[in-house]
Each structure stands twice: as structure tokens, then as C-alpha cells.
């Protein structure tokens, strides 16, 4: 083998055309082997069988306006139903003349959530914004102080879904943190009760909690004291999400190196100071993405309240479908609210993934 020495680097030249361009991509990704080619053909067949009928039903044959249900029953989708009913689906039995109030409420919710998503806002400013926002929401929904009173039984649709989910997380979170700290306590009685609570709640379906709240809570209260149906369901959601949040926070607590606690003790901090200033900030910032995922789950779970006769977004839709004049448009209605739920959950989960990437960049893994 001869010695060689090169002073001038060889120039880059592009690869053979077979490997790049559209044909190259097709070859590598879709037809790289016999098995892959078969899969590609099967997938294309699947798409060809499913997409055209759906497009025909949803767009080409669809009816976009009709006077009543009977006129809308052709082979295609009846989007006129949505046009007719969307106000009811979104706001339910809220008085029609006070419609502007739930609209503003939904807007305020979206603003609050968007503000919480921007990391620059995290801190006291966000807490104040949320406090003001929630007060405004309850004032707008319930009335009083100049607005006509609307009882909670009439709160329904999208505002109800948002209230149940947001308030559920808001109160469930501190309770969950306390449970997580209690579960890691060295005091056996405290630990036993917290573990018992967490495992009990996590072992049963949300429906049983809702039943318990709506059927049993009245029994637990002194005679004469009644509790609002909405409050019952809200309490059930709070207690339920607290148990799951407790496990998420516990994961964060377990990830804190022992050295942090030892350093805090060496500095002379009390348990409460140590927890508040050192342990919790680190633990919670570690589990922010799972917390966001928990919020998405809670948002989906609010749909169960229709089983205890509360008309959230799904409940209002089911109610809208009982109109004698507009019978049989289940698919259209389901697709409509599926889009609403899906948009919210999808964008929240994308945000959660982005947040995770950002947070991990600043942290050595």
C-alpha cells in the first residue's frame, strides 16, 4: 500500500440521481422491499375505499340549509342541523337573551389558558390574572351585581365543560400536592391515610365518584342543607383528579436528589420552608408536561357529567338530538363536537410536547 498525502480537499459532489428526488424518496420510503410494497398497496387501497364515500357524504352530497329535519334526510350530511342547533350545543339551556355572557366566559377562559401557556407570564402576574378571570367568569355566569341571576342548573354547554375542567384542576392540584407530600411523610398515620385515599380513588371509575357525589353527598349533609348539583359534580371531579395529580407530583418528589434535602437541612430550614422553597419548586417544574396531560384527561373526563344529568358540551348535544323536528343527525352532531374536543386536546398535547422539549434543553439529562 503506497503512502499518500493530499493537500487540497476533494470537492463535494452530489449523489447519483437515483438516490434523491421524488423517485428516490418513493423508493426508500414506500417500496424499499417486497413486504413494504405490499403494505403500501394495501394502505392505498384502504385510503381509496374510505376517503371517497366520506368526502361524498360530508361535502358533495351534504345539505347546508334546510327548514326542518324531514327535508334534510338525503344521502349526505345535514350540516343545516348544526347551523340550527349550534347555539344550543355550545351554550345549552342558558337563557337565550343573556347569550353574550357565556360567549365572554369562553373568551376569558381561552385568554387565561393562553396566558398560562406563555412561560414569560409564570409568576405573580399569572396568579392575579387567573383570580380576576375566575371571578369575572363566575360573576358573568351566575349574575348578581347588576346582571340577572341565572341558576346553576341552566349552566350548560362549553362554558360548563371549561368550568368543570379548570376548577377541577385548580382545586385538585393543591390537594394533590398535599396528598403527595403526605404519602412521603415519615409519620405512619399520615402516610397510611394518604396512600389509602390515593389508591382508593385511583382504583375506581370516575362514574362511581360522580354517583357518590350526586347520590350520597346529600346524605352526608345535615338535614336541611342542600347542595347544588353542579357543586356535587365539581367536588367529585376535584377529589378524583387530586388522586391522579398526587401520583404525578410524587414522581417529581422522588426525582429530587437526597442532597437537596440535606443541603436545606444543613442551612437550618424547617420542614415547611424546605418544602416550599427547595423541594416543591424543583419537583413541580420537573413534572409540568405530565401535569398538562392530566389537564387534557380531566377535560375529556368532564363529558361524564351527563350521566348525572348535567348538560356539559356532550350533554347539551345529546339533548339537542332529542328535538322532534330534527331527528336522526347523530353523526353530524358527534362530528361537530368531536372537532371541538379534538382541537382543544390536540393543541394542548402539542403544547405539552413543546414545553417538554424546552424544559429539557435547559436541564442536563
Amino acid at each position: 500500500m503506497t503512502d499518500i498525502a493530499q493537500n487540497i480537499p476533494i470537492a463535494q459532489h452530489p449523489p447519483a440521481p437515483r438516490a434523491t428526488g421524488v423517485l428516490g424518496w418513493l423508493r426508500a420510503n414506500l417500496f424499499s422491499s417486497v413486504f413494504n410494497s405490499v403494505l403500501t398497496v394495501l394502505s392505498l387501497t384502504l385510503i381509496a375505499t374510505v376517503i371517497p364515500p366520506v368526502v361524498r357524504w360530508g361535502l358533495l352530497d351534504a345539505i347546508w340549509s334546510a327548514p326542518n329535519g324531514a327535508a334534510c334526510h338525503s344521502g349526505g350530511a345535514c350540516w343545516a342541523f348544526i347551523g340550527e342547533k349550534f347555539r344550543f350545543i355550545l351554550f345549552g339551556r342558558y337563557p337565550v337573551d343573556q347569550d353574550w355572557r357565556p360567549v365572554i366566559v369562553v373568551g376569558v377562559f381561552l385568554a387565561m389558558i393562553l396566558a398560562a401557556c406563555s412561560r414569560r407570564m409564570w409568576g405573580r402576574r399569572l396568579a392575579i390574572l387567573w383570580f380576576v378571570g375566575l371571578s369575572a367568569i363566575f360573576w358573568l355566569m351566575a349574575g348578581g351585581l347588576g346582571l340577572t341571576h341565572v341558576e346553576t342548573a341552566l349552566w350548560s354547554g362549553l362554558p360548563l365543560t371549561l368550568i368543570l375542567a379548570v376548577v377541577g384542576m385548580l382545586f385538585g392540584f393543591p390537594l394533590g400536592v398535599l396528598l403527595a407530600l403526605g404519602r412521603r411523610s415519615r409519620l405512619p398515620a399520615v402516610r397510611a391515610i394518604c396512600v389509602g385515599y390515593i389508591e382508593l380513588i385511583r382504583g375506581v371509575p370516575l362514574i362511581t365518584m360522580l354517583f357518590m357525589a350526586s347520590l350520597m353527598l346529600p346524605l352526608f349533609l345535615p338535614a336541611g342543607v342542600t347542595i347544588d348539583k353542579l357543586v356535587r359534580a365539581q367536588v367529585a371531579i376535584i377529589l378524583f383528579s387530586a388522586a391522579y395529580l398526587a401520583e404525578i407530583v410524587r414522581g417529581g418528589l422522588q426525582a429530587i436528589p437526597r442532597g437537596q434535602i440535606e443541603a436545606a437541612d444543613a442551612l437550618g430550614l424547617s420542614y415547611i420552608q424546605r418544602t416550599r422553597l427547595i423541594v416543591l419548586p424543583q419537583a413541580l417544574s420537573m413534572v409540568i408536561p405530565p401535569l398538562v396531560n392530566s389537564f387534557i384527561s380531566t377535560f375529556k373526563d368532564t363529558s361524564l357529567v351527563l350521566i348525572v344529568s348535567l348538560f356539559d358540551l356532550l350533554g347539551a348535544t345529546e339533548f339537542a338530538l332529542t328535538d322532534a323536528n330534527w331527528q336522526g343527525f347523530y353523526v353530524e352532531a358527534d362530528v361537530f363536537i368531536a372537532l371541538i374536543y379534538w382541537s382543544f386536546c390536540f393543541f394542548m398535547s402539542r403544547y405539552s410536547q413543546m414545553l417538554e422539549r424546552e424544559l429539557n434543553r435547559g436541564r442536563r439529562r
Partner: protein
Amino acid sequence: MASEEASLPVAPARPAPWRDPKVRGIAYQIAFVAAVVGLGAFLVHNMLGNIARQNIATGFGFLRREAAFGIGESLISYTPADTYGRAFLVGLTNTLYVAALGIVLATILGTLMGLARLSGNWLVAKLAQIYVETFRNIPLLLQLFFWWGLLNKMAPGPREAWRILPDVFVSNRGIVFPAIVANPAYRWIAVAFCLGAIAAIGFGRWARKRQAETGRQFPTGWVGLALVVGLPLAVFLAFGAPLTLDRPALRGFNFAGGSTVSPEFTALLLGLVVYTGTFIAEIVRAGILAVSPGQSEAAMALGLKSGQRMRLVVLPQALRVIVPPMTSQYLGITKNSSLAVAIGYPDLVSIANTTMNQTGQAVEGIALIMAVYLTISLAISLLMNIYNRAVALVER
């Protein structure tokens, strides 16, 4: 002299009781327990008072009373003349049935979709991704209503039933398909199946022993399959291939013959499987990605074939990451089956609900439901903990 005094062990001075952490710890616990017990006592006192006032019965005696309501479908025999206790049993079996079937099907669908997402084929991976992203972000209850609406309301009456396969009809009474008529030969076929399974296991053991001694490998997978399938098949043929189908035929307003699955059951199963399949797909994908690519490369460099790499190196490590979240999904299917109450499938919660409405004994009913679900959850958690401890990777 000084050394004699120093040799006696000296205990540290005990602090004053209110500074002693042990005493404070006990005091906190007493206060905490007292608060919890106090709250509990308050609630129970109110409850007993309210129950007496409203003349609600207490105790579980109602389980022996006649139920007087019908149940749409059941795995065990039931009539309205049976007790509430029996009705609960029907609910329990229905729940376990749909949960078990749901777990099996969701695992299959989820695993296939998870592997599809990892596929090198762009189209397949994208389709799987669309499936996961779509059905994961829509509430399960809405999906259940969708399938139920499709099968119950949109499906035509039996006379205009959709025919999706020869002899398989979909109508708003359910999906009806041919049933296999029982035949004494089937008992023998079952026996042959068991024998085939035992033979396959024994054969596997012999093949492994032979490999350890001589190094020669035997295709145990194929032979095992041949035994488990071939033996029953041989028995089947020996009996003259008895296969009579009870074909459903339209008679009057409905189908006679064949077996039916109700639209409620189908909708519940479909919804559970499609929804949970998305989570399982992500779990499987994460598990396989968790195995570092260096492991595959090392196995490749050693000359292991693709199937061997999967079986001996990648899968054992992936399963450790997959099984814990997978079991919590299984728990989720069991708990989510309780949504059956919304679409009318008679599961445990549904039947308990009817019972509570009729007897007014909400407390006992809810306690029963929670006890059942808790037992199932704890059992599955226990199994998972045992598995985890057994396969934990040994480290310093």
C-alpha cells in the same frame, strides 16, 4: 481516673417534650387522625340521620330480594324473578367479559399500530399516526355514542339489514352471524388442542436441551404451531369434518338462528378497543424506542439475524418498559367499561344503578361497586409489582 469516667456511655440529653421531634410527630399524627375521624364521624352521623328520616332501608339484605327487572344480555341465566344478588352477578360477569375481550383486542390493535408507527414505510407510519392522534383526543364517551348511534339508530331494521359478509348481517337489533352447532366431536377437538399444547411445550423443552448439548437449532415455533393446529385439525377430519352452521335467516320481523351480539355490546367493545388502542400504541412505540440503537448494532455486529435480534436483545428490554404502563391501561379498560351505563349495556354499574333507583339504598350499592373495582385494581397492581421485581435490571 478520667478514663474510668469516660468509659461509661453517656446518652444525649432529652429535649423538652414540645421540642422533641418524636413527641411532636406523635402529636401531629394524633391531631391529623382525630381530624379525619372527626370528619368521618360527622358525615356518618348526618347520613344515619338522613337515612332514618327518609325511611331508607340499610344493610345488604336487599340482595336477597327479588329484582323484578329484566336484563338485556347475560352470560349466565337470569330472570326477573331472581334476586338482586344474582343481578349483580350478571353485571359483574358482563363487565369482566367485555373488559377481558377489550384487553385482548386493544393489545393486538395497539401493538400493531405501535409497530406501524415505527415502520420504515412512510404511508403506514403516517396512517398509524393519524389513527393515534385522532382517537386519543376525543372523549371516550363521545366515541361510544358515535358507535352506538351508528349501530343502533343508523343501522336499519332487520328487514333491510346490511350484509357485510355472507350470512353476517348488521341491523339495529345487533350483529347476527352464523353459530356453530355443538357436536360431540368438538369435545375431542378440545382434548386434541390441549394435547397439542402440551406436546408443543414438551417439544420446545426437548429442542432447547438438544441445542444446549449439540448447538443444533430446531424451528420450535413452526413445529409447535403445527402441533397445536394440526392435531385438532386431524381429529376434526377423522370425525368426518362435522361443521354445521346455524345460519341466520330472516323470519318475520327479525332473524332466527345464528348468534347475535347486541349493538350496545358491540359499541362498547369497539369504543374501548379503538380508544385504548391509541394509548397502547404509544406505549409500545416508546418501549421499543427506549432500547438504545447501540443494542441492535451490537447484536448486528455479532452476526445475529433480524428475528434473533428482536427476540433475544430488543424485546426483553422493551417489555420491561412496556409492561407497567400497559397494565395501567388494562385497568383503565376495566374502569372505562363502566361507561356502559350511558349506552344501555348491562354492566355492573348499570345494574347497580337500576338497583339503587329501585331500593333507594345508594350507600350499599356504591360501596359494592367500589369494592369490586378496588379488588380488580389491587389484583392487577399486585401482579404487576411481582412482574416488575422479577425482571428488574440488576445494577450497582
